[in-house]
Each structure stands twice: as C-alpha cells, then as structure tokens.
C-alpha cells in the first residue's frame, strides 16, 4: 500500500515531493516539532510564561528548581540573583533567539545572494574584487571578527546581529556565485538569453530559482549558527545587554553563581542546545530532501 502511495505522489511536484523526502527523516520531523513548540512558546510568551521576565521578587533570590529541596513549584526552574523566574525568562528569551536567527539569516541571505549573483553573473573584475573582500572576511576567525565589530558598533543586540550577518556573508556569496557559474552556461539560460531576456530577469527569475536548494540548506545552518554566535557574544558581554532575557546574556550573568546555583547556569545553556539541535535536525532533513545527489542513493 505504501508503495502504491509513493507512486501516486511522486509525479506531484513542489511541496508534496519535498515533504515526502523530508518526512522520511524522523530526526528532521522531530526537529521540526520541537522548533514549532519553541516558536509557539516564543510567540505566545505572554500567555505561556508563569511570571513576568523582569519583575523581581526580592523574597525569593536564587531559589532552586521546584523539584529540589527548598524549591517552590511556582518557580519551576528556580529564580535568579534578583528573584526573577528563570522559566519565564527562558520563554521570553526564545523570542530573542529566534528573532536573532531570523534577522541574521534574512540579512545575510539577501545581501549574500545579491552580491553572489553579481559576482557570478558578471565575472571579470567585479568578481575578483568581491571575492577578494570575501577572502579578507574569511581570514579572521568569525567570532573574533564579530567581537571586534560589535566593540566598534557598541555592544547590543542589534549590533550583534549586524556583526554576525556580516561574518556569515561570505558563505552565501560563495555558494550563490558557484551555483550561478554552473548554471549560467546551461542550455535553458542560454535559451532565455537568446530569447531576449534582460540581465535582471536572467539573474533573478531564470538562474536564481535553480540555485535555491543549497541556499536553503545553508540558511538553516546559518540560523542555528547565528543563535550560537549571538549567545557567545552575549556570554562575552558584547551581545544583548542585561536585563534582556537573552540566553547567552543570562549565562554571562549566571557565571558568578557557578558555585552556588547550578540552575541559573544549566537551564539557559540547555535552552540554547535544544533549539540549535532542533534546527540542525531540520537542516539535515532539508538537505536530504533538497539535495538531488543524495536523493538518488
């Protein structure tokens, strides 16, 4: 029966086919499920969170998690140094992490694709200059470059996002350029050029859609990497500034309690880890579903 179904769905193009391959990867589906939960929690944080993320209850400083001795169930994951509920802060923090991922990916994909298209399509001197600039960016360890950039722009969430987008840029430029270069000599492109299609039309409507698969996979990876990088910057004190409940920033604040209150250190990191794993699982699934070479095997 399953076989018959496959046969009937196969001719369908687009989303159905994609979903067929994607859903074969159990991990990817799990990742998607977890991601959707996090997304839901983030969007409806105001309803989901048991407390406000910023209200300080000065009677319960550094309260341990609910199930441990001395904990209170109203503060499921305990409280921090000024008596804020950790669970609620994590829930609100999900907003920041997902937002960071989204903004970084959007920024770097749009600019990366644009620059990559130009480099790959026009070749010549433009290409050389662009690629040289990308080489320069790649010559620095990404986190170091981001760190210095944020120091220049001033510590904060927005600047951290800009910095991370910039260090991500070369990957998208290189990917788009390589894809464009292999596509632009193909028959269908030459055919539409002969048919009189303009440069812009060729670039965006003819070539770009055919390079999308690797870009989508890379974008997913960049999404999780952005969350990690932003958290790392926050941890180093250069990302979101306290009292923002960003996970990395929460970790940085929690560092001084490493001896005394394991929960303020453990949970923010766990939140980062789970989110990143979920997105990476989805990324693996996307790659399987979109990469034609793997599809064959």
């Amino acid at each position, binding site marked *: 029966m399953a076989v018959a179904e496959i046969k009937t769905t196969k001719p369908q193009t687009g989303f159905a086919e994609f979903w067929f391959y994607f859903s074969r990867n159990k991990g990817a589906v799990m990742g998607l499920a977890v991601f959707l939960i996090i997304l839901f929690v983030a969007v409806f944080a105001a309803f989901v969170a048991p407390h406000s993320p910023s209200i300080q209850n000065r009677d319960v*400083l550094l309260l341990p998690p609910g199930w441990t001795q001395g904990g209170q169930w109203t503060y499921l994951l305990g409280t921090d*140094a000024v008596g804020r509920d950790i669970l609620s802060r994590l829930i609100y923090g999900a907003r920041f992490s997902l937002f960071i991922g989204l903004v970084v990916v959007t920024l770097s994909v749009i600019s990366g694709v644009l620059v990559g298209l130009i480099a790959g399509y026009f070749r010549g001197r433009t290409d050389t200059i662009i690629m040289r600039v990308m080489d320069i960016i790649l010559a620095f360890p990404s986190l170091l470059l981001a760190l210095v950039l944020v120091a220049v722009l001033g510590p904060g969430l927005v600047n951290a996002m800009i910095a991370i987008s910039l260090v991500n840029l070369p990957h998208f430029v290189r990917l788009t350029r390589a894809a464009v270069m292999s596509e632009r000599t193909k028959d269908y492109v030459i055919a539409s050029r002969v048919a009189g299609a303009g440069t812009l039309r060729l670039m965006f409507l003819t070539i770009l859609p055919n390079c999308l698969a690797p870009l989508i996979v890379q974008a997913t990876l960049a999404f999780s990497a952005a969350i990690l990088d932003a958290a790392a910057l926050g941890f180093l004190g250069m990302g979101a500034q*306290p009292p923002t409940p960003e996970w990395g920033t929460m970790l940085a604040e929690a560092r001084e*309690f490493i*001896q*005394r209150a394991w929960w303020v250190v453990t949970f923010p990191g766990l939140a980062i880890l789970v989110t990143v794993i979920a997105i990476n699982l989805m990324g693996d699934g996307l790659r399987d579903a979109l990469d034609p070479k793997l599809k064959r095997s």
Partner: protein
Amino acid sequence: MKKLSTLLAATAIATLMAGSAWSKTFVYCSEASPEGFDPGMYTGGQTFDAAAHTVYNRLVEFKRGTTEIEPALAESWEISADGKEYTFKLRPGVKFQTTEYFTPTRELNADDVIFSFERQYKADNAWNKYVPGASWEYFSGMGLPDLLEKVEKVDDLTVKIVLKRPEAPLLANLGMPFISILSKEYADKLQAEGKMELMNQQPLGTGPFTFVAYQPDAAIRYKANPDYWGGKQKIDDLVFAITTDAAVRAQKLKAGECHLMSYPNAADVAELKADPNLHISEQAGLNVSYLAYNTLVPPFDKAEVRKALNMAVNRQAIVDAVFQGAATVAKNPIPPTMWSYNDKVEDDKYDPEAAKKMLEDAGVKDLKMKIWAMPVARPYMLNARRAAELMQADLAKIGVTVEIVSYEWAEYLKLSSAKDRDGAAILGWTGDNGDPDNFLDTLLGCDAVGGNNRAQWCNKEFDDLVTKAKETSDVAERTKLYEEAQIVFKKEAPWNTLDHSLAVVPMSKKVSGFVQSPLGDFVFEGVDIAE
C-alpha cells in the same frame, strides 16, 4: 573522589620539598595581569600589588593595616614652618636586591630618590619616555608636576623636596605606590646597554621580595630578598597565580591551589565562609559609591528635589541584592574608616511617602530622568546595572520615570564628567592615600566641576572648608573642618551616597600574618604559612 587531585597536589608538594628542604611557597590567586612592573606608569591595583608592594619601597609607607604614614626608606623627616620644604633623612645601609640580571655595588642614596622623582616629571630626563607611550598618570593625577618646585640632594643620605605652595596631603601621597624608589645604578646600566625597556620587565628595588619571572597572564614568581632591610621574609617563594574569573579563584582556593585570593564574588562568600579550611578576613573598604545628580540642570539644581529622590531609594535593598550584604549603606561621602568621618551626620530615611510629598511641594510633577549605570564592576559597585534597576523600581513608586542608560567604560568616564550631562550617574571612588582631601576636594571641590566632580556641584561654603583644610597641617584643625564639610554636603545632597563596600579576603587557615590594607592593596610582607 577528591583523591586524584589530592594525590596530585601531594606529589607536587613532595617534589618541591625534595628540591629544597626549607622551601615555603605562598601562592596568591590574583585577579588580573599586572600592566607592567614599573609602578610609576600605571594605575591598576594589580600592578601595585605585583610591583610596588613586593619589589619596591617608598620614602614613607602606610603602616600595615592603616592609612597612617610610617618611616620606610626615609628614617625621619622635617617639615618647614611654611609647609613648603620637606627634608628626608634616608635610612643608611639599605641594599638593593641582587638578581640574575643585576648585582648592585652600592647602597641606597639620595641619587636614587632624585632619579625616582625626576624621571616622572622632567621631560629632559632620559627615562621620562623610555618605552613607547610612557606616561606618569598618578604623578600628574596627584598634581605633583604643578606642586613640585624641586627635589634636591643635601648630602648622600638627605633629600629635600621643595613645594610651590603648602600641601598637607603630600606625605600621604609619598606613601603611594607610584612614587616607589628605583635604583639609579641599575637604570644607568640598562641605559648604557640600550635595554631601558627592561626596567618595566625585570624590576629591581629594595623591597622584601625579589622578582624571578613573569609568565604573561599566568603567573609571577618572586623569592624572598635575603638582604631586605626589614629582615628576610618567613616564606621563601611568593607566586601570583593570575586567575581573572572570581568563581575560578574561589574554586582554586578551596582546592588548595592557592593560599589567598582577591575579590571573591559576593555570591560565593557564604560558601567560602562555610569551608572549615578557610578563614575570611573582612574590612570596610576605603571607598564610596554614589549616584551623582547633575546639579546644574533643573530640577536637580534644587536641594529639596535631590533630597526627595534620595529618600525614595531603598539603599539597603541595593546592598542586599548587589553585594549580598558585603557592604554598608553610606551616609557621608567618605568611608567610616577614614579619619574625620562625621558619625553625627543624620542619614536620609527611606520614606517614599515623605519623598513624594517633598517632590510635590517643590512643584515637580511627572519627573522623567535618566540614570547612568557603569558598564563594569568596580570594588565599590559590583553591578551598577542591577543597582540602577532597583532604583528604577523604587523611584517608580513616587511617580518618577527612570530610563537606564549605559556607555562603554571609557565613554562613560568621559561623558559623565560633562557639565551638560543629562541624568544622574552612578560612580564611585577608592581612596588613594587615606586623606579626606582625596575624597572631599577631589570629588566635590569647585575646581573639579567638569571633571571629577560628577555632580557639577560648586558650593562656596563647602569649597572654602576643604580648601582651608588642605592648607593646614594640624590634623585636629583639619578634622574639624572636614566634619563641618560633611554636614554641608548632607544638607545639599549633591549625591545619593549609596554604599561603602566591604573588602573580603578569603584565605587558607594555614596563612598567618596577612593584614588587610584599607587601601585595597595586597601586601605580602610578613605573611607565613603553617606546614
């Protein structure tokens, strides 16, 4: 389960014992790398601990555990009647250290003293710019270039310092690390060899410990100076284990990897106190943290508005949340351990109701203000951001809307001293030399407006009092003037005095002879460890 590390430590100690039968090594977990080893060029406390208090001495020094001046390289001194001439008699027979890199041929004399002064302010001195970017921040910060007329040699063991005007705090200034006495003979040798930069890397002085090696960002090693004029130390080796993370320092102390640590996290103190192997020494720090209003900008130009805001803030809550209790609420601009502290001054009571009414009476409604929070932790204020959040919540209760702003530290220092600053700024001060002038005139005098006077507060009555005190050498007279100045300060309330933090030094119970310095320095002269 702790066996492995104990075993490792045990083998380590065993080896060491085998190496030299009587070697006693004292390990101090310090908080930062020294900026260098020439104390004149730097301002960081870690640099003074690593260079000034180990390798060097000064003409006069602070008696251990106090801010009183006592003789050191100078045995005695005389001050002329007009307060402008200081004549120092040097201690005879003081030997400089003998190290792998230098063997002295003569004892301390007046040339060394003159050299140590002149290199810091005479532009034609070869040592004034001996490394790129050499500058003498403390020397100029304490106003010495303008104050010094000359430093001259009377005879081999007598030096005379001539001032342009009388300045009572001078002696206290001379006890400060920046004016450590170097060896001119060593300097001449380095200069002849064209290796002047080594003065900052291989220090050589008269102090209790001889410099052995520095591994950047990791450790500094010293051994006891056998020729020390104060007698050889009881420990043989002194090691600074540089450990920047406070939680890690605490871990190392508990694990027995070091004997004493600086600046623990407030959060860790309770646990350290509970450890049976540790002893915690506590002392009120010579510091103050304050919220400075900009008294040039309405409505903060009115004392009653400032007073009302002060009354609305629960400072005890700040002490609890930021210092976990390791601080006391401040009422005066100088700390209680300082002479002339006026305990009779009555503190503003935390009373939001009264505060609200006072604001209304002053005709201030819907006040919106900014509070500036420092981006870094300092001993007097561990977390300005957290303190600002607490004030924000308190002021909201009397209808004042607070916006918290912060800048990068260098920017913060610069912008907060601007006369047109918008908002009240959190900042603080750690005493340099224990003289009240170092707080009252430096931070609140009229000359300091647009500079260190972050409240931009120029009050004639107050300024006259502290200026007069500065020019008087009689301590009893000065005390009276400063006490009066504190009353004026409280009445006018240019600051909300937040806290004086407690300096907490955890150490192993094996340590004896360590005396906390009120100035926050870590001095290891005289320490010992039990086997």
